């Protein structure tokens, strides 16, 4: 018996308990074999894991906030105030939850656009793309539902406008509005509903989709962008375990540092308690990831032909969202090894549009 066999056997004995109960060898084999292709765009492979990291932070801090938060119109604002002023490190936990939410949306956005531009949605990764886009929409849903929970003025009006936007959907719009608000108006019923959606419904959906998404990525391996196939073939791939994972962890450590610094230096403000009988405050605007839609809707005239401009704008955004979701079934060119320049151009145009509209919303004063 060689020395190598001896080592393997002693490992086998130690792992014996688990080996009998779980296909540990298969898992170990999988991790040993998992490779990450190396090419000019390999850096973008870290963004999905980064999004996952912020998601984990959200779950942890979210559970901590649940210990003190009270989801009613009478107590919500006060309970968040209590967390921020009385509970030890409460300000830090809440601040991290808010900052990490924003960083998670940013990471997910960068991840999604990099995947789009690298055409990683092509066959057989259609479902990975679809589950990913749905995860992104759910992330925005988390942002929207969580924003109301402190029950402050900005959140109150953001929710009023956001749910009103839903009501323009043909046929079912009004029912959807009533469903979301728990009535005709934004009230305590809306708050309780959003709380349930934020801490139970969305986490359940995200967990299910996330398992599917990550499983598909593991089964199919990393996609190599069409332009990098030759370079990638020349380069030695990086073994995932431990080399890529260690780099992942380093990235997470840096992200944690940035997150803590932001949360400590710029604690998330609470604002003023919502008053349904106060005017909307000047300078009100949505969270940055909804800004581009907000700014676009401002430019659409009140009436286009016989329809309200707003309705057309919102329907157009809905259609673009659907197009985005179904991209792998529309853009069939890259899998046939042909260039799909129009889709690449569309991706860059979307990025430019989002950046320009968001910048305008920031730069132009709101009280003109």
């Amino acid at each position: 018996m060689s020395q190598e066999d001896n080592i393997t056997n002693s490992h086998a004995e130690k792992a014996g308990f688990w080996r009998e109960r779980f296909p540990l060898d298969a898992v170990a084999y999988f991790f040993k074999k998992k490779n990450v292709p190396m090419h000019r765009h390999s850096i973008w492979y870290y963004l999905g894991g980064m999004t996952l990291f912020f998601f984990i932070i959200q779950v942890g801090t979210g559970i901590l906030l649940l210990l003190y938060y009270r989801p009613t119109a009478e107590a919500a604002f006060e309970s968040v105030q209590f967390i921020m002023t009385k509970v030890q490190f409460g300000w830090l936990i809440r601040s991290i939850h808010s900052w990490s939410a924003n960083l998670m949306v940013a990471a997910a956005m960068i991840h999604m656009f990099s995947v789009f531009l690298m055409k990683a949605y092509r066959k057989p990764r259609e479902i990975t793309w679809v589950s990913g886009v749905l995860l992104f929409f759910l992330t925005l849903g988390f942002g929207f539902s969580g924003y109301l929970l402190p029950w402050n003025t900005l959140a109150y009006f953001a929710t009023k406008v956001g749910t009103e936007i839903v009501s323009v959907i043909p046929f079912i719009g009004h029912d959807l509005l009533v469903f979301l608000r728990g009535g005709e108006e934004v009230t305590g019923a809306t708050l309780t509903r959003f709380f349930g959606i934020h801490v139970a419904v969305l986490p359940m959906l995200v967990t299910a989709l996330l398992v599917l998404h990550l499983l598909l990525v593991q089964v199919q391996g990393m996609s190599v962008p069409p332009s990098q196939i030759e370079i990638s073939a020349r380069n030695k791939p990086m073994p995932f375990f431990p080399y890529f994972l260690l780099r992942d962890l380093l990235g997470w450590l840096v992200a944690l540092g940035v997150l803590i610094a932001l949360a400590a230096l710029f604690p998330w403000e609470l604002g003023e308690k919502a008053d349904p009988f106060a005017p909307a405050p000047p300078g009100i605007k949505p969270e940055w990831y909804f800004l581009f839609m907000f700014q676009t809707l401002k430019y659409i005239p009140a009436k286009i032909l016989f329809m309200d401009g707003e309705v057309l704008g919102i329907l157009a955004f809905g259609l673009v969202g659907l197009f985005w979701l179904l991209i792998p079934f529309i853009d069939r060119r890259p899998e046939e090894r042909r260039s799909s320049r129009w889709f690449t151009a569309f991706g860059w145009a979307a990025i430019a549009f989002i950046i320009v509209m968001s910048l305008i919303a920031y730069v132009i004063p709101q009280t003109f």
Partner: protein
Amino acid sequence: MEKEKSGLDRRSFLDYFLGGGVVALIGSVFFPVLKYIMPPAIPQAVQNDVVAAKANELQPNAGKIFRFGNKPGILVRTPEGDYRAFSAVCTHLQCTVQYRDDFKHIWCACHNAHFDLNGRNIAGPPPRPLEEYRVEIRGEEVVVIRKA
């Protein structure tokens, strides 16, 4: 083998029968759930008039939000000293409007909507004018009345 006489053979009959049963089962589970998540309508007593302010409360060129039932209303005293009252719910996306003494008209902060002192939408995205109310001065009180 003898051919089935009826147009529907036994296999497809069973398939429809079972399929229909499954659909009915799913329907009977989800119908109550769907009905449950739609909140019941809570009847509101319709309020047709309200005391919006005291007679000497508002200076000319000022506005005030008041409660009209479960919705906000806005009482405006024009620079000339007249009273005007409207629903304070912007016809665009339902934010609450305010009186801007620098513009001398009504403005909504959410999407920069402007309404003149007759409630007409004069700039920005709103598709319709604000709902107008009647104003009556009864002794010391400014009363706002919903138009019939």
